[in-house]
């Protein structure tokens, strides 16, 4: 309980504070359809503070969010903590007759706080991965065989959360990654796709410090590991998902359908993907 309070305390002070966007006026949309598939209960939850650079040309500007690695018997899920909150809000709103300004403002606020946008599911028996993500308003899902992660184990060590953590490095997804893992927790998992080390990854960053995950706490609370089931989800490949994501950032006019009063001026969005895929 004390540990959970500590995590929540850190969360409130490090959550990704983006300029608040709100709407005003008459608006009404039909409720959200919410369906999810329960995979299992968690045995352990590892909380990581996530720091990232969204604009590769302004590396001094970092953003923060809280991510969580949920570990069960057969599955693990790596997700932004605010995605779990968003899903909970969307489930509640799915029972409403109509969604108006109040509900839309709640959704806008929670969406703005999501820093890590890919939900990563790992089937532990064969390390196969399923990802759920979004490009503008289209939801995508793609699968990937567990990547072969051949780490180079190093001699250096340091203490993280009072665990002895050892260093390992790897080139993956066009970036050089540095992990600190502990053999004191013999779980071969970590943030995002990373794992396959002789212990839990407690810290992970790329050498350019564009992405940094550090464990800030863990607990054994039983939570549901679920996967959203979407009627309109587009099943795609990893390559095509990253291509669509890049296209949206570079040519948003192909995705954005809305019109703003006084003329629409489309601006590119800086793109800094966690994996560089051509």
């Amino acid at each position, binding site marked *: 309980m004390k540990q959970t309070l500590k995590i929540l305390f850190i969360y409130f002070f490090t959550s990704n504070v983006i300029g608040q966007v709100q709407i005003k006026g008459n*608006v009404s*949309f*039909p409720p959200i359809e919410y369906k999810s598939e329960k995979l299992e209960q968690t045995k352990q939850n590892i909380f990581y503070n996530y720091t990232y650079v969204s604009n590769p040309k302004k590396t001094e500007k970092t953003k923060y969010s809280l991510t969580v690695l949920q570990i069960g018997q057969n599955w693990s899920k790596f997700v932004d903590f605010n995605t779990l909150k968003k899903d909970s809000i969307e489930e509640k709103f799915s029972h409403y007759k109509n969604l108006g300004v109040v509900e839309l403002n709640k959704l806008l606020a929670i969406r703005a706080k999501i820093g890590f946008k890919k939900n990563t599911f790992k089937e532990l028996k064969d390390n196969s991965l399923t990802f759920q993500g979004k490009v503008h308003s289209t939801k995508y899902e793609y699968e990937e065989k567990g990547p072969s992660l051949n780490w180079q184990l190093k001699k250096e060590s340091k203490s993280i959360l009072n665990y002895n953590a050892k260093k390992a490095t790897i080139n993956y997804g066009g970036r050089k990654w540095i992990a600190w893992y502990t053999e004191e927790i013999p779980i071969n998992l970590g943030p995002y796709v990373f794992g396959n080390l002789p212990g839990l990854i407690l810290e992970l960053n790329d050498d350019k410090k564009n992405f940094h995950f550090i464990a800030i706490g863990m607990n054994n609370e039983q939570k549901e590991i679920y996967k959203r089931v979407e009627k309109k989800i587009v099943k795609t490949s990893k390559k095509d998902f990253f291509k669509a994501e890049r296209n949206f950032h570079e040519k948003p006019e192909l995705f*954005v359908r*809305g*019109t*703003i009063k006084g003329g629409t001026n489309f*601006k590119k969005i800086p793109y800094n993907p966690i994996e560089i895929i051509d």
Partner: protein
Amino acid sequence: MKSLFLGLTFLLASFSSTTNEEKTIADEFVCSNWVKVIVECDNDFWLCTDGQTMEEFLEDATYFSQGRC
């Protein structure tokens, strides 16, 4: 000959004027419901909800609010 030239010039000017006027009317976007999107730095804007799903509307509001402050 002179009057023919003047006549042609007038006719061309009329055509040109009509085309511009039509273009202005065609460019005017008609929306039945504008919603105000408020961003922190007072650089607010209005977004049309016509024909949009909630998901599209929320994503568009987020997209257009970026880089305004």
